[in-house]
């Protein structure tokens, strides 16, 4: 890059890291939610299974 490599690649690398980071953060947030819902779903199932009529 004609001697400007540090600046040009420094820009592109940080941008790439930010973009990948953002995508990973969103996926993580969604997966956490799915796990929470999975737990709640299991708890609800156990509750209804353990219910008695008396």
């Amino acid at each position: 890059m004609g001697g400007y490599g540090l600046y040009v690649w420094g820009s592109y690398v940080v941008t790439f890291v930010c973009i990948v980071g953002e995508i990973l953060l969103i996926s993580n947030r969604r997966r956490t939610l799915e796990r929470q819902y999975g737990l709640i779903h299991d708890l609800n199932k156990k509750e209804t299974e353990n219910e008695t009529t008396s």
Partner: protein
Amino acid sequence: MAINWFKYSSPASFYSLAGKMIPIFVFAAVALLVAGLYVGFFVAPTDFQQGEAYRIIFIHVPAAWMSMFLYVVMAFWAGIGLAFNTRLSSMFATAIAPTGAMFTFIALWTGALWGKPMWGTWWVWDARLTSELILLFLYIGFMSLQAAIDDPRRADKAGAIIALVGVVNIPIIYFSVQWWNTLHQGASVSVNQAPSMATTMLMGMLIMVLASWMYSIVVILKRTRVIILERESHTVWVAELQKKGAV
């Protein structure tokens, strides 16, 4: 036959619409990114004055334009949510903020890395750089304020005030290079003048702007879907999705 203009203002229907839209924009974002980088690195020539360092422009300008555009869009939806009390509008504004903040940071970072070799300094307190930094603080303020308030509807309203008041910063950023004596150069691209950039460089830059726009749409739609799931977790339709394992 009456058109229901407000069909997609319901979180449930928007959730599935967004899910169908995402793949289209992913394809567009990737295609434009590849095209933009190709033009930027293999078609656009070396700059006479700046050498290869100018290639930072293919990130710096798209990031700066997106940072400003996304703020206006965020303020618009926050305003709609505040005025009409619509939940989804505010959820959308909340979804936009982190992406806008990211682009603002990238604009500042790449600007500093471009400024050091060209101007001899990482930073100056000139009008454009300072107002872009203020934009970053506005985004962070918006996100922090919303995070600090427990009730999501109150958080929406409070955030909307910051978003709307901060919109005044956008024309300040845009016109700063005309109104003040700035180190940052003036507009090379404008609506009423021929561009003062080489065509290949301009094309690369514009393709990258479109690529960032498509990317923003993807990421914001994904985040909105997650926010909808979080905030509508008490509803029947989310429970149905859970049962189907489609969450």
